[in-house]
Every structure is written in structure tokens, then in C-alpha cells.
């Protein structure tokens, strides 16, 4: 599981739309995985199992926030969070982060699982718990929205 942590952090940062929230999410997933390790079936993929667990925690958290009437951080907040600390780079990171942030959760997770994490449609659909065709169409809608926001030149 230690070897999976960098990838789990990457998915969490994209899912939670913020690296700090991402690490909180990642930690919650690690704790729950240890708690439920008896439920993991050896021979199945640990990474998919962890991604699924992390995604479910995220969705539960979303519902809880909605019930509490909380809203997300302002769109511009966190736009300057980036690697290296270079101003130019921070601006560039912000463009992609903001574009991703506008996607509905179901489209964003499809885009992240396939286009960033490199899962096949079948594997991504298993993690999300939906049919492959649904995953495919969410991916296309999310991708098209990103292309529109980022400009077709990409």
C-alpha cells in the first residue's frame, strides 16, 4: 500500500479539487482500508479497491457537506497552489485546476480515472460502479467541457 500512496494522493487531489483536501481524503482512505483490510480479497487489485474506497468516502463527505449547507471554497481560492512556487507555473496550474473544478463529480472522476490514472474503461467503471457505456459518455462530456474551457489548442 505504501507504493500506492503517490498515485492515491494524485487521484485524491483531483477528486477533492485541492491538494490539502486531497491529503485529508487520502489519509481517510488509508485509515478505512486498514480498518477493513479483512474485506480485501487477495488476488484482486489493491489499487482499484483503494480507489473505490476513496471515491466512496469523497461522495459521503459531499453529501454530508450538502446536508450541513456548506459550500465549496470560492472558485479562485487555491488557484495559486502549485509546484515550484514559480508565479508563471502557478497561473498555468490554476487554469487546469479551475477547469476541472467546474466539472460535475461524476464527469471529473471519469476523466481522472481514464485520462490521468490510466485505467481501462472497464476498470474505471468497476471503481465507479456504473456500466462501461455510462463511464464512456461521462468521460466524453467531461472531456468536451474541459476542451471548451481550456481552448481547443490544449
Amino acid at each position: 500500500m505504501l507504493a500506492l500512496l503517490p498515485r492515491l494522493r494524485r487521484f485524491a487531489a483531483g477528486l477533492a479539487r485541492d491538494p490539502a483536501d486531497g491529503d485529508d481524503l487520502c489519509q481517510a482512505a488509508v485509515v478505512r482500508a486498514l480498518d477493513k483490510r479483512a474485506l480485501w480479497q487477495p488476488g484482486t487489485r489493491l489499487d482499484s479497491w483503494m480507489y473505490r474506497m476513496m471515491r466512496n468516502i469523497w461522495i459521503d463527505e459531499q453529501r454530508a457537506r450538502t446536508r450541513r449547507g456548506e459550500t465549496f471554497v470560492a472558485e479562485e481560492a487555491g488557484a495559486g497552489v502549485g509546484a515550484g512556487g514559480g508565479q508563471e507555473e502557478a497561473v498555468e496550474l490554476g487554469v487546469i485546476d479551475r477547469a476541472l473544478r467546474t466539472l460535475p463529480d461524476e464527469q471529473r472522476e471519469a476523466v481522472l480515472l481514464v485520462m490521468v490514472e490510466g485505467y481501462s474503461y472497464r476498470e474505471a467503471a468497476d471503481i465507479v460502479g456504473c456500466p462501461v457505456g455510462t463511464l464512456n459518455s461521462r468521460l466524453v462530456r467531461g472531456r468536451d467541457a474541459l476542451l471548451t474551457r481550456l481552448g481547443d489548442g490544449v
Partner: protein
Amino acid sequence: MSVTREELAAFADGELDADRERQVAAAVAANPALAEQIRAHRALKARLGAHFAPILQAPVPERLTAALRSEPQVVSFAAARARKDRARVLPRWSWVAGPALVASLVLAVVMPRGGADYAERPLSTALDRQLAGSQDAAGPMRILLSFRDDSGAYCRAFAGEAHSGIACRDDAGWRLVFEGAGVPVQRGDYRMAGNPAAEVLERAQALAAGPALDAAQEQAARERGWR
């Protein structure tokens, strides 16, 4: 023959079955608009991959690795404070932390060897030794990422003022499989979009058999001499 947007994305991701893939490939070859959509899909994939790549290279926060250890963590106050001080100095997603392995490199030279171009020193030295996760941000040559191609060979995408490109390791050395223009350095950082580095990353995406190597995998590959 009509191709849906879903099929086009599946084609770009290599997800269609063999029959349908042949049909869509023919449609794409005959229709520049479809080819452009495939290009946009792959370019977006490369850009997203590059955007999130620094997280893979960055050190994992201690609280996450600590959560994995079963024994309770007893940490002295002084140690905790030292760690906090360290965290203040390093930006959260710092991927340029750590000492530079190759302090200075000059113009890279490329020599033909039996019909193919191979990297000569100092480029070959940088490819042998520099790690994407710990290199001099202001150095003349940067490794953008490392990956394995379909044959299992290690390949590395690099960018420098003089030129950029992708080299794959084989018996004779680092064979250059793609060469691009030089990448301007801006305050020590390479911007990932709108410059030749984006093209290099897009090519890397197309060549790679899987995701980019993370810091530990890259280090292990270097220890094995990239073979």
C-alpha cells in the same frame, strides 16, 4: 460510416474491439476533422498527465506513511517542530527539492550510430543520472518524466534550452526517438503548456505503455542502469 463521440474517445484510448477499431481508423484517416478530435483528446490527456505528475514525484507527507504503520507513533515535540519548520520551507508540492545530481550541463551533442541517432555526452550523462524528482530546477537540461515503451525499454523525456526530445535505452545507448525544439527557461521553471515541452509530453504519452514512473521506480531503474 458515422462515428459517435463516445466511439472516437474509445478509439483514442485504445478501447475499441479490433473490428470497430479498423473501421474507425479508416474513418479518421479519411476525415481531418475526426483526426483533429483524436489529436485534441490525446493532447488533453498529455496535459492532464503532466499537470498531476508532480504529485507522483513529491515526497509523501509523513502523516500518510505514519497512518500505515501499525505501531503507535511516539514523536517528540522537538522532532515534530523540526518537521513543521521543514514543511514551511518546502512548498507542499515541491518536486524540485533535493540536491542536483548533475550540477551543470552544456549543449547536448547527438551522434549517429548505425543509422539511428544516439545521445552523446553530456546529454547521455543526464539521461543516465538525472532523476525527475530531484534535479536542479535551474539546470540547462531537465528530465520531464520517465516511462517504459511497448517493448519494455526505459524512455525519458527531456527538455533543455538547446533542444528537447525523448530517448529510449537500448544495447547501444540512449536512442533518440523524438527530437523537438529547445524550451525557454522561465525563472527556472518550464511551463508545461504552449511550448515545445507540451509536444514532447504528448509524444511521450503516445509511446508509453503505462503511466510515468514514480520517484521510487525511477531510482530503481537508474540503479539497474535503465535495463
